[in-house]
């Protein structure tokens, strides 16, 4: 066989430049701590906001964000990458962390203890955050009668903007189940549900 080969540039890749997260995650799985940090930098805010929307508590959302990433690292061998994205899997871990909150908090008590010890700085945008908390509490009040599984789908598909496929991967259920749970949630919420107003706003958009 003739040796028709094409050499490509031989520079190490900056991890932030790796768009396909399957590659990045493979590096994490191989024990590359920098790759894990790159993923944390990329997704910490998204996970944080998802947790806040499920809890209506910024402080707890902050703590659990760290727990989600630590759990992700522990379960790195089981990661599911959907269309080159790891975020649906992280949403799935976050959903499990919320579901088993006490157990995961106990398991990660050392990390949580350290986070609590080192908390010092005042929270930025405090007034806005208080207002967001009140608004989120009102929203959660309206959805609290829904079965837990429907709340999960509502939070993933409507509040976080995941596709049905991504939500299915996050929850480990078939796509049809996601669709039917969401339909039932919409039916249950009836006219109080206004999807357009509930969907996640693009980043940087501030309501007047």
């Amino acid at each position, binding site marked *: *066989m*003739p*040796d*028709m*080969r*094409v050499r*490509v*540039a031989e*520079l*190490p*890749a*900056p991890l932030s*430049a790796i768009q*396909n997260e*399957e*590659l990045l995650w*493979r590096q994490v799985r*191989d024990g590359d*701590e920098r790759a*894990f*940090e790159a993923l*944390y*930098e990329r997704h*910490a*805010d998204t996970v*944080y*906001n998802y947790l*806040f*929307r499920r809890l209506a508590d910024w402080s707890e959302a*902050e703590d659990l*964000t*760290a727990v989600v*990433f630590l759990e992700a*690292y522990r379960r790195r061998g089981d990661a599911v990458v959907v269309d080159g994205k790891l975020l649906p899997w992280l949403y799935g871990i976050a959903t499990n962390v919320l579901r088993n909150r006490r157990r995961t908090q106990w398991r990660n008590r050392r*990390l949580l203890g*350290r*986070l609590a010890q080192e908390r010092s*700085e005042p929270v*930025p*945008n405090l007034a*806005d*955050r208080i*207002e*967001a908390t009140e*608004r*989120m509490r*009102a*929203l959660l009040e*309206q959805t609290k009668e829904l079965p837990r599984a429907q709340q999960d789908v509502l939070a993933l598909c409507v509040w976080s903007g995941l596709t049905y496929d991504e939500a299915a991967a996050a929850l480990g259920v078939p796509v049809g189940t996601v669709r039917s749970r969401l339909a039932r949630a919409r039916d249950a*919420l009836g006219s*109080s*549900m206004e999807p357009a*107003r*509930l*969907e*996640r*706003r693009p980043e940087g*958009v*501030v*309501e007047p």
Partner: protein
Amino acid sequence: MSELPAEFSLPIDAFERQRRLLRREIAPPRHSNRRRIAVAAAVGIVVLLCAVVATPARGVGGRLLDLIQGTLAPPEVQTYFTANEETRKHMLAYEEQAGAILHGRFSPVIASQARGLFAIKSVDGPIYLWAAPTEDGRQCWLIQVGTDAATGSPRGIGTCEEHEETGAIVPDTTWWADLPDVVIVHARVYDDAITQVDVEVEDAPTVVLPVVGGHALGTIPKGERALAMVGRDQSGSEVARYTIAEAKG
């Protein structure tokens, strides 16, 4: 129902604190010198026992992380295959012009069907082998040893089958990857009866490579010299032998 509140970033100090603590949590445990010595001694004993008990001349060509046969290649790898098509066409045209005896046949690669075959952990980092079919039923493959900084595309070397092969094993004898501590050994295996490829190494134990999807892949320590590749069937019988170099002396 009230509106969904806007999103906020993690407060910067919380972000940094979490990052620092996560780094600490996932860092491999540091062992004391005493513990290190104990571990080294234990490993030494195990190695000695293996040397006594195990079948002689059987090594492992890099630790096989997992067989990733069937794993769909990520977009960067798929792009790599299609990006080389123009070069392939150009090279074949050049061969034609030069009056080469072996006329190559160009066939487009089906990059969307590129799949992973191997993931090997070496001391120089992971090594992957990706393969994609061509429209005429042959194969292109890529051995990946890293990722390009600027583009995120895989760093490695690839080739496509464009000529008729007559051998049962075609070893990759151009040890191209300039890795600090290992040399990659690869063979394309065309005989389905071959289930493993033994790499015979001068003054060192033979390295055994499994065959996956018609490829055998592994590593030998840098500085060692591969003498032959031997294809064996399930019973261990020799099916094909390819001599790479003659033993010195």
